[in-house]
Every structure is written in C-alpha cells, then in structure tokens.
C-alpha cells in the first residue's frame, strides 16, 4: 500500500479527498507534496478510474496521474454505517476537500465543523452556493465558456475553443490547494478551523490575463478598440507575440523584449524589407511599428527550418518558442537532464512515465508517486473505528 512521503513538505498533514474532476488536481498537489491524502471512493469504484486515456491493461492513465500518491478507501455512504465511517474519516483529518460528496451523503457539514473545531473544509462548486446558476451543470467545455476561457481561445475562422485535457480545471484545482494550506496555517496559528468556499467560475475568471483589463481600462489602452478583444488565434493582446509557420514546423515569435536587436538580425540577413522606411518607424524613430514588424517577421520565418532557427533565436536571447508536439516534449533533453519525469505504477503492475512536479524544494524533496493502488483497502460497512485502524489514523 503506497503511503505518503515521510520527508515531504506536508508530511503528517491528513487530508480527505472527496473531489471530482473539477478539483482533483488540488488533491494531487497536496499528495505530491507529501500529505497523507485518503481518496474516498463509492462502492463500484471512482468514476474517474474510467477516464481515458488507458493503458493496454485497461487501467486509466488519467487516474494514475491525477490520483497520484493517494491511499484509497471504499465507503458506501448510502448506509448508516458507511456515513458514520465517512464522518469518522473527516473528523480524523486536518483538511477535507469536497465537491458536493458530503451533501450527497447526507453529512451535516455544520455539525462536522462544530465537532472538530480545527478542521478545514474546502468546498468546491461550479458556480457558488447561491445565485440563479448555482445548480447548473458545467463539465469542462461549459465551465470554460461561462468562465471566459473559450471566448479568448480560437481564431477568427474557428469557433471558440476549450483548452486541452484538464487545463480548465487545473485552475480551480490549484486554488483548492491554496485554500487548504492557507486555512491550515490559520488553524495552526489560532486553533480555529473553517470552511473555505470557492467556485470554478470565479477561479477561471481570475486567470484570464487581459480580459478584465480590457473590460475595466480599455479607454487607457492604445491598442483597445472596446471592452472586448475578439479572439484572434495566437496573436497576443499586445500585438507583439504570435505563432508563425516556418518551413517544417511552427514557432512562437515576438519582438519583445529587444526589437532593435531583432531588427539588426533581419538586416544581417537582408530580410528587413521596408522596415527601415521612415513611415514604418515609431515616433521616436527607434524601431518599426509593431504591426508591420510582425508582417515582415512572418515572411522571414516562412523561409526557416524551425529547429535551427529556434536554437539560433535563443542563442541571441530572443524568447522564441518552438511549438513542440507531445512526442517531442516527451523526448525533450532539458526535461530529461533535469530528471523531471516520474514513474507511475498502474494497478495491473505496468510502470508508465509521466510528468513530475514543477517545483523543487531544497529541504523537503518530492517523492515519486507510489503505485495507483486498487480501491477497497477498507470496507465501508465495517465499523468506523475499523476504517481508521486500517489506515492507521486511530492513534
């Protein structure tokens, strides 16, 4: 049975993870940092074990990644005994992460917090607990639409688009972890637990870069024609970054931060076209205006082989980015040299490589994920104290 990392930053922190796909990434963040995270599954198994992609064995790769470093307990919360076990588990924890499972099970959340005054309960909803949309269903695409992600993604000739995989729900997931750790700190300082509510909807709207800036300050932005910047492919709101097509691949090209140096490179290659004409220079005469500069760059990039062009751009300190497909990312020498990848052991025993964590803590290193164990370490119909004994929380 995999257990928490004894050396992780969050060693000894007990967490109950009742999250669904909207927040499970938050449980993963805490588990990968060494917290002892128990993921509770209904009888019949966590539906997230049935999400693709799958390994040849039929095991869910999705679940192996998002449920990393957890321990698993099956509880049938529709029975009185199961509900009591769930309450006992939550009462033994420092933090409970919930996305509606407690209410569905009929657990009295107010009583839980009263009985365990230092407990932190993080409660994730799609739209908050009140308001006309509170009961709306919002899987990824719908959440991305209402939360402003889709309107900002896609091109003039495509519909609005969603992000890949769980990009949308990574945002509320990360906020779940912040909520848990901030409230845990408050509990450590004051002895007082509390409830922290958050909605996917607000979380997404808080992470849209220019969207609220356009709404609030468009009158002050020389490039803004109104309160909304229409979607326009990869062209950044500043007009200064865009993905361009080279001969054999795509690359993100920008005139930031040193347009003069970039212009000098163009001149060196005789590719500057009319950029040195006075009419294309900004009022200071120092550099070409952005729109024309980007057009000329597009013509130039189209003549390039993407790989050597990317490395030359970086050697010249231009922050260009080669558009890497997933197989090239998987073989990336930089990530390999950093030892970033970790091995996930699937329930059937296969070992599969996957992404590691994005931060490296000097004194509390992250452990590689343990096996994604099968469910049912404890039977929910057993007495609550037996469940606690099984996971070692009875002490």
């Amino acid at each position: 049975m995999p257990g928490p990392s004894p050396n992780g930053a969050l060693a000894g922190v007990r967490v109950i993870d009742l999250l669904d796909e909207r927040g499970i990434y938050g449980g993963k963040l805490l588990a990968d940092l060494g917290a002892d995270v128990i993921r509770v599954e209904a009888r019949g198994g966590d539906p997230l074990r049935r999400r693709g992609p799958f390994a040849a064995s039929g095991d869910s790769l999705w679940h192996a990644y998002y449920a990393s470093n957890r321990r698993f307990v099956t509880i049938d919360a529709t029975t009185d005994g199961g509900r009591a076990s769930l309450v006992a588990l939550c009462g033994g924890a420092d933090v409970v992460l919930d996305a509606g499972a407690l209410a569905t099970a009929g657990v009295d959340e107010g009583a839980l917090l009263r009985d365990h005054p230092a407990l932190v309960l993080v409660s994730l909803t799609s739209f908050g607990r009140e308001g006309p949309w509170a009961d709306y269903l919002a899987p990824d695409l719908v959440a991305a639409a209402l939360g402003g992600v889709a309107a900002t993604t896609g091109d003039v000739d495509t519909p609005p688009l969603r992000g890949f995989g769980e990009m949308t729900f990574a945002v509320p997931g990360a906020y779940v972890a912040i909520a848990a750790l901030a409230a845990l700190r408050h509990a450590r300082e004051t002895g007082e637990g509390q409830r922290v509510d958050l909605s996917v909807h607000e979380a997404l709207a808080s992470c849209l870069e220019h969207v609220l800036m356009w709404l609030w300050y468009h009158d002050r932005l020389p490039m803004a024609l109104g309160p909304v910047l229409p979607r326009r492919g990869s062209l950044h709101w500043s007009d200064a970054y865009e993905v361009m097509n080279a001969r054999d691949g795509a690359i993100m090209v920008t005139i930031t931060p040193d347009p003069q140096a970039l212009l000098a490179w163009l001149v060196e290659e005789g590719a500057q076209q009319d950029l040195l004409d006075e009419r294309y220079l900004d009022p200071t005469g120092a550099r070409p205006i952005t729109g024309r500069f980007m057009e000329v760059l597009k013509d130039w990039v189209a003549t390039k082989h993407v790989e050597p062009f990317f490395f030359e751009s970086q050697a010249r300190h231009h922050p260009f980015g080669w558009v890497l497909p997933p197989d090239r990312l998987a073989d990336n020498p930089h990530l390999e040299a950093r030892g970033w990848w970790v091995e996930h052991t699937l329930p059937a025993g296969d070992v599969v490589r996957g992404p590691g964590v994005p931060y490296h803590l000097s004194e509390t290193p992250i452990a590689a994920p343990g096996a994604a164990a099968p469910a049912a370490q404890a039977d929910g119909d057993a007495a609550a104290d037996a469940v606690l004994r099984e996971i070692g929380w009875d002490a």
Partner: protein
Amino acid sequence: MSSGPLPLAGVRVLDFTHVLAGPFATRILGDMGADVVKVNSAARPGNTPLSAYYVMWNRNKRALALDMARDEAKALCRRLCERADIVIDNFSAGVLDRWGIGYESVRAANPGVIYVAMSGMGERGPWSSFVTYAPTVHALAGITALVGVPGREDIGIGFSYNDHLSGLHGAVAVLAALEARRSTGSGQRIELSQLEVGAQFVAPALLDYFANGRVAEASGNDLPYDVAAPHGCYPCAGDDRWVAIAVMDDAQWASLRTVMGDPEWARDERYATAAGRVADRRALDGSVSAWTRDLDAYEVQTRCQAAGVPAGVVQTGLDFASDPQFSATDFLTPIAEPQPAVGQSYADRLPLRFSRSPVTEYRRSRMLGEDNAAVLGDWLDMGADEVAGGEAEGYLR
C-alpha cells in the same frame, strides 16, 4: 461565524518579481494578509506602476523603490531579507547573489527564510539559459500544439494561461514550505520551472504517448479521450455569439432532443448511442448549429440547463459585467481609493471565501516608492528622517 485575522497575517514577503507570473503569486499572498513588499529596482525597471497591466496584478502590496546599483541599497535589501519570511524573484539565476542577498548568504542570519525562484526553464539543464514569456512556454510545453483545430498548430490558448498557473503554483509552494518550517524550524529554497508547470497540463497526452506510443493532436472542442457528442460551441443570434453544449451521456441527449422540439433528424437511430453520435459528430454539429443559429445564446443556456443538459454562453469580459453569479458575490468590485495612474481601479476578488478569516480588503496598487517610509519603519525601525535622507541621497527612490 466570527471573523479573525487573515490567514497569512504576520507573514512578510519581499517581492522582486515583475510582469505577471510572480506578481500574481504575491497578489494571492497579499490578498490573504501577508505583508507583501514589492521592490522596484532602478537596475531593473520591469513594467511601470503607471500601466494598467501593473495595476491589475499589484493590489494589496506595499511599494519600496531602491537603486540597486548603489551599495547603500544593497545593504538595506540585505537587512530586509534577514527579516523576511519569503523572498521571491523571477530574475535570471545569479542576480540576487550579485546583490549580496542570495539564499546561501542570507540563511545564515535568517535560517527560517524561504526563497522562491520562478524562472522560465529552471536553473539546471541544457535549456536553462533560454529566455521565455508565457507564449514561449505554451509553445515549448506542448500546449500550443494541442489547443486548436486539427491540422493547425498556430492557435494555442489565447491568453497567458501559464503565467497565472505559475503564480498559483508559486503560492502553493510558499504555503507548503511555511507548513514544513513549522515542524523543521528551517526554511528552504524553492526552484519553480514555468516550463514544468505548463508541461503538466498535457499530462494525458504524455502518458498516452509513453504507454501506447500515440501522439495526440489538437482536436478542437472534441474530447480526445471520452465518447461524448454533441460537444462544441454553436453559433447563436447576434454578432459572434456562441453557446457551448456538452452532452455527456445518452440521458442528456434525450433531454436535448426534447429541448430542441424532437426534430426528425434527431430521431435518427444512429444517434441513440454516444458512439453513434461521435461517429457522425460533424453532421450532428451542423444540425445543432441550425437549431441554435437564430436563438439568443442565454435562452439556449437557460432552456438546456432547465432540462439537465450542460450548456453555457461563451461569455466575454463584457458579459462578466452582468453575470448574475458575479453580482451575487460582488466578485468584480471597485476599489475605493483612486489609483493615481488610472483613477478608478477595480478588483476581481480572491475566489476563496474563508468563513472565519474572510478577505474583505482590496487596496489599490501603489506608486513607485510610495511606502518607503512605512515599510522601512515597520521592518527595520528606520525613522522618517533616515528614510528621507536615503531618498535625498538617491539610493531610495
């Protein structure tokens, strides 16, 4: 419930970050009550406090301005680092060391200090010197290739998503290190790689590649690993108005049929199963679009949701201004005190609603050096005269 001190009351943060990823991390810490001191150094102007972009990410912080080319400023910074809980930067490696405030040198005097370095590529590895902004990281991390429509890899996500996510992960790392310090008594140094933040989000594609050798491609609004249709954004009445509809199972399909008035085409037997609908999804999309095209997007949303079909308008920032959920929580709120550069400024509230330590205060972003005297008084017991002297000397600005 009673209202207590903010969750991070008493935590001191010295903030050397600029642009978006770092400032977003420290904005979250500041919202939750940390005393975030934003250091603007003449040696590195970054983006100016006069810009709307700066105003967006620097609320709930105090502002200290130093000329880091001056030895007096470096010495002052050193004393601040010795009193900080958190020192956070997104410079290239070595800048803090050159200023004499690198982690190894400061930890001897302040063993509890937590340093966070948020660089693009991380500090080790053959690409560690590469320069990046969020669109660079999106490209290198596989996000650009996988967000878009089949056959194109030049779309990607339309905003600096990874900067926000790097900020969120920076906050997670800080909070985890504070918890660790409680038991170990010591701080530590955290290295965050924005490339590694981004590459995590294509995890399903990476695991699929490693396990099965399959190379994922952009798939528009189709779900690459689930069998669900119709699933897309459909045009509605008005200029560039769209509604997202996501039918995740057969029961929702049956409900959508009813909402649409059970048209003849929808009774096609092939559409009875999810697999059948997915196989014919482009024709299905065309039929659903024909239904939505003349309808108001919010009407489609309301009718679908009333019948248990997931649907929502593709909302723009302007739609947010009348979003009933945001109104219910006063999510988008004006900041009372005028901001000298932009006048009226605004805050999107921290999405976390703490029942006992609620975040209620949103203070405007500060101008260059506006809090020199207050910060140096609070952190170093410096008197107003001494601060004024430093400003006259020029090492404080």
